[in-house]
């Protein structure tokens, strides 16, 4: 190697360090402004749109004294910008006010409900990725074949079906008719009182405590909603995998790999998929974020006591603090996953890795 080439590599190294610093800086700016934006929007929804925010929080049956006190407590006599400042400060401290419906601080309710949602969305994404990635790969490799057509139709229906309706049909078939799965809830009533969760992820908790009857019961409850979410995520993941794989299979390095005499299996799974895996991480993360959102409807159908059900229950009761708290909770995780997937992409791609 020539001296000039050595210097060029060294120069690229320091340039890369600067690039990484600036991308971390950019990342922080984006994270902060996006989160402030989320708070601004929920502030706008909670304080500006309603003609009387106190009424929106308390309902119209509250006595005048309580209304006056709440008005002062909410700081509604202050200028709007100052109200927003207090709002942001409280939100950063995890204070989203009190839920009228449960009389708990909204944050307490959210803490209780969140593991249920995470458990459901995680399982759904796992199902989606485990089936969706191989399906997408096969569809790309056998482009135009029967399996490609089937994958395409499965994907299109997944994009087009109302998830709550499919959930209802699933309940009719697998719960009412076939009795394969348990009724809509997280656990049978018997276990609700005897089982003490540790992490809040019931499958994990039951396995850790060796209570396999509880594990089986929890599984019978989660399998249908998780498969449903898994299907939605499969539709998205398989379609994106196919498109990434087609892109990779058309590259020159695939021709080179064939010229080396590698087997098709090795070329597809060892080279093409490895390259597609970099953008796939983003796709799977996005699909996870979408499932968190999709949980609002799914949890309602399956009486799954997660954050989605919490939001919809609060909605029916005009419990604005709870609705906005839940929105911020899901929004924050959604934003975090979006940003993290972007960061992960940079880490996984050797072209941007420091080395």
């Amino acid at each position, binding site marked *: 190697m020539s001296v000039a080439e050595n210097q060029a590599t060294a120069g690229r190294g320091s340039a890369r360090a600067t690039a990484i610093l600036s991308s971390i800086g950019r990342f922080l700016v984006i994270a902060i402004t996006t989160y402030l934006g989320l708070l601004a929007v929920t502030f706008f929804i909670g304080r500006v749109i309603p003609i009387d925010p106190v009424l929106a929080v308390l309902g119209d049956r509250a006595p005048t004294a309580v209304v006056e006190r709440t008005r002062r407590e909410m700081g509604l006599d202050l200028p709007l910008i100052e109200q927003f400042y207090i709002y942001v400060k409280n939100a950063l401290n995890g204070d989203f006010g009190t839920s009228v419906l449960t009389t708990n601080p909204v944050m307490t309710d959210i803490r209780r409900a969140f593991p249920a949602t995470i458990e459901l969305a995680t399982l759904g994404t796992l199902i989606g990725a485990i089936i969706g990635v191989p399906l997408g790969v096969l569809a790309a490799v056998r482009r135009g074949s029967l399996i490609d057509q089937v994958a395409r139709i499965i994907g299109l229906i997944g994009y087009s079906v109302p998830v709550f309706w499919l959930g209802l049909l699933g309940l009719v078939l697998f719960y009412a008719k076939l009795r394969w799965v348990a009724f809509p809830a997280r656990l049978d009533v018997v276990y609700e009182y005897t089982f003490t969760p540790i992490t809040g992820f019931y499958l994990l908790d039951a396995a850790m405590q060796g209570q396999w009857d509880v594990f089986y019961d929890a599984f019978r409850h989660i399998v249908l909603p998780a498969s449903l979410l898994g299907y939605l995520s499969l539709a998205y993941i398989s379609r994106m995998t196919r498109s990434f794989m087609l892109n990779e299979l058309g590259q020159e390095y695939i*021709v080179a790999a064939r010229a080396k005499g590698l087997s098709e299996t090795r070329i597809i799974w060892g080279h093409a998929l490895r390259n597609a895996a970099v953008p796939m991480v983003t796709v799977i993360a996005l699909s996870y974020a979408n499932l968190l959102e999709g949980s609002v409807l799914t949890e309602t159908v399956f009486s799954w006591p997660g954050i989605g059900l919490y939001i919809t229950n609060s909605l029916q009761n005009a419990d604005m603090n709870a609705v906005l708290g839940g929105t911020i909770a899901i929004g924050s995780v959604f934003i975090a996953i979006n940003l993290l997937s972007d960061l992960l992409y940079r880490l996984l791609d050797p072209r941007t890795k420091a080395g």
Partner: protein
Amino acid sequence: MSGKTSTLLEVEDLRVNFPTRIGQVQAVRGVSFSLGRERLGIVGESGSGKSQTGRAIMGLTPPQAQVTARTLAFDGIDLLAAPARERRALRGKRIAMILQDPKYSLDPVMSIGRQIVETLRTHEKVGKAEARDRALAMLEAVQIRDPSRVFDLHPHEVSGGMGQRAMIAMMLIAGPEMMIADEPTSALDVTVQLDVLGILDRLVSERGMGLIFISHDLRLVSSFCDRVIVMYAGKVVEQLKASELRDAQHPYTRGLLNCMPRIGFERHPLPVLDRKPEWAV
């Protein structure tokens, strides 16, 4: 098989067709030549079918392409009749190919060393440590100074010249007898081109390999190869020794020759390549 040693590759009436919406596109239309342990240059402008000829020999034409030939034999093996498995075993082991641009032809997410080792371990039962040693030796053979460092680098971390040397190492490690180099230096800086050509030249003669050198650059080919085939519109229009290039008969070859600038000659008006439809018939 002593008679076969002089001829490695026999090509007779090779045709490559692509069916499209508007009918058949004939990329290669009846090409014939043979190759011994020598350097054969294939020259032509883009679209002349020279690259598809190379890919057809490798068996790397796109799936929709139809390849036919009266003879397409490597060391007595009928390539078109050979099962896919046998052809695959030949690729990389006995026939190798170097592509144009290392930026695209090396896997971007795999380290250079692993890509070289991969070729070796596909064709030979070799342990990990031995494979690594042989890959390092191969990197040294293509004149990379610090093989153990380059071994762990990813393709984007090296220059084009070094990438192409790594490509050569990757393709030569299993010891092929024949090599197709498809525009191996066209994507490189002019200063690096000669280095890479020198390495290729030395390795090919040291190992007594047959080389098909595909290029659009007539001067490069004539200085580098023993024999030259000139292709136009999917056909061979002229076949001659590199040393006799000045006596080329065909007007297309003469046109290509005239396009090359020479020091001390007036270039007004600038010669334009003549393309007559009857040559393509």
